[in-house]
């Protein structure tokens, strides 16, 4: 027994097994179940085991699916651009303009304060702010900027994307800030010494070295936005759809196989997007 445990081979397997078991039980098994159920059939009240492609046929045969996927990509792309620009700027400011470590930590904590409340609360609090008689409209009217309340502020794509950006920018800030802090300051000094302008330093030194952080942040933002359903429902006033809402509608109507099929297609889509992202940066190497 003693010898058995001492064997490097066995010990390695034993050490890895808790994580493997957890992942197998809570990640692999549920996904396998979803894939299996996606081939099942459903009546109005129940689901029954089968192996049929009806769910996928219906999914790919409906023009709604394509427009909804397109909409999901649109939300993801626009949100990604804004969170990247804002997140990069904030991280850049924290990492290079704030010199004292104490202030860096203090300001960084400041960024996280909104996250002490729940996601849903932060989302819903936009509704009274953006509403027809909300703070934004009444302020703009009192300043004389507009005469009539702006209708497109709430229950529109604008409000959906605004909320996404608000909810997920921190997921960009953290990884980018983290990689920026690890950039060797002497590299930047070297760039200056060699006559690079601030902009050249940014594009030739800082951005390439920050790529892993940008990529990790991008993966966070893209997967969160593509998997979301509740933000789209609340902020569009149920008037827009993304893939998450298709799934949630199916579940509400007890059409689990159809929901599972949509979930599988979404999962594959997101995996492809991440694979494409990872083509640009080898995260393992850079970390």
């Amino acid at each position, binding site marked *: 027994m003693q010898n058995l445990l001492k064997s490097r081979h066995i010990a390695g397997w034993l050490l890895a097994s808790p994580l493997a078991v957890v992942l197998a039980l809570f990640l692999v098994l549920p996904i396998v179940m979803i894939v299996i159920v996606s081939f099942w059939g459903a009546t*109005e*009240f*129940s689901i029954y085991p089968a192996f049929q492609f009806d769910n996928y046929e219906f999914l790919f045969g409906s023009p709604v699916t394509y427009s909804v996927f397109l909409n999901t990509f649109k939300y993801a792309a626009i949100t990604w651009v804004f969170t990247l620009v804002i997140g990069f700027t904030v991280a850049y400011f924290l990492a290079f303009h704030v010199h004292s470590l104490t202030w860096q930590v203090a300001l960084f904590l400041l960024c996280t304060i909104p996250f002490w409340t729940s996601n*849903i609360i932060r989302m819903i609090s936009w509704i009274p702010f953006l509403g*027809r008689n909300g703070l934004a409209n009444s302020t703009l009217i009192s300043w004389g900027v507009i005469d009539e309340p702006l*209708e497109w502020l709430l229950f529109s794509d604008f409000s959906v994307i605004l909320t996404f950006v608000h909810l997920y920018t921190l997921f960009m800030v953290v990884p980018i800030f983290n990689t920026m802090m690890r950039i060797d300051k002497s590299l930047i000094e070297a760039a200056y010494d060699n006559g690079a302008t601030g902009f050249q330093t940014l594009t030739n030194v800082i951005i390439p070295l920050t790529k892993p952080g940008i990529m990790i942040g991008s993966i966070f933002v893209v997967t969160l936005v593509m998997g979301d359903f509740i933000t789209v429902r609340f902020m569009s006033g149920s*008037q827009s*759809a993304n893939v998450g809402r298709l799934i949630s509608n199916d579940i509400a*109507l*007890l059409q689990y196989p159809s929901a599972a099929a949509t979930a599988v297609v979404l999962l594959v889509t997101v995996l492809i997007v991440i694979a494409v992202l990872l083509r640009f940066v080898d995260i393992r190497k850079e970390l």
Partner: protein
Amino acid sequence: MTNSDKTGGLNRRSVLKGAAATAAIAGTNTIGAPMIWAQNIKDITLRQFGTGVSNLNDVATKVKEDLGFTLEMTALDSDAVTQRAATQPDSFDIADIEYWICKKVWPTGNLQAMDTSKIANYDKIVGIFRDGKLTPESEIAQGTAPHTVGFVDGPGGREFVDNESGWMTLIPTIYNADTLGIRPDLIGRPIESWTELLNPEFKGKASILDISSIGIMDMAMVCEAMGEIQYGDKGNMTRDEIDATFAIFTEAKKAGQFRAFWKTFDESVNLMASGEVVIQSMWSPAITAVKSRGIPCVYQPLKEGYRSWGGGIGLSKNLSGLELDAAYEYINWYLSGWVGGYLMRQGYYSAVPETSKAFMSENEWGYWFEGKPATGDITSPTGQVMDTAGAVRDGGSFYDRMGAVACWNAVMDENQYMVRKWNEFIAA
């Protein structure tokens, strides 16, 4: 009344339950001692599940007090209720479901018909649930009218019959007539027709509920009122009728007619109270909620009539012996007035209104049932004053409101097609 809420927010039922729990209502026991052996009945537990409108903990407490046995309540959304009634007959003794759910579920054979001769107040049950007519002159509305799925041909009957056969599927418990809610202060002119929902005057200020089985009915009321579509039966549309209905509403949606769609009770209240929306589909307790914030809101009677719904309790096929006796005892108690008075104070109607009268004050009875001006304050279940002396209930008396029902909530033969179309409409 399908209403599922995945966000943990409120829905109509949880609001009602909460409201009900805080309402202090004194009732008295009019039916006296339980009719079956008291020593055995204490051990009996009946498990009831349902859609929550009438699944009130106060009712369970009162049952324990008056009848001595235990009633366990489970409230679910109506999709889950339908599924459970159809697939898990062993998990309940009493099903509190809506009539359109009964139409879907009865053929599974999981419920047993009730012998009307054992129901003391059967003769006093409102005509809607017996021969379909509120008064002898009434016309029967479209959709799944309760009496069409109310009777079967015998104790084990699977087929619905069109006469009072003596074997009832559901004992009616609660029902109401739904219409559009409006903000009279922001509209400033009389609203008389369902067509106003798509009136360009209210562009960007209208809303409809995002629950397909009910939303489609409201849409049909609008399209028919506009004269655009003549339905054979709004409660059982053909594919062409479904397509035509969605075409009209999709066009309106693209033109920006709707501010939002709502799915939960609190969303409808907030849309109305904030002034985002001035006209929308609404449920009666939501009007109460807006009014109790001091904001004017009217449950507007419309000339084309109401969209109505009703629920009732049915017995599991597994009930027998003493438990079955207890269930009959419970049903008789249910119709004896206390519950009816409780529900009528929330704006619903009881199946046997005359027994409920004893449990309401003269002012309440006059306001809620007879449509008379209130003689004193009318308070909501949570105790806030909703209407003061002189106010009249929107739509008037019971006979004015229930007599003007144009269609009942229904389940269509083309239900799955309709649901797909609904998803397309939302994504359009």
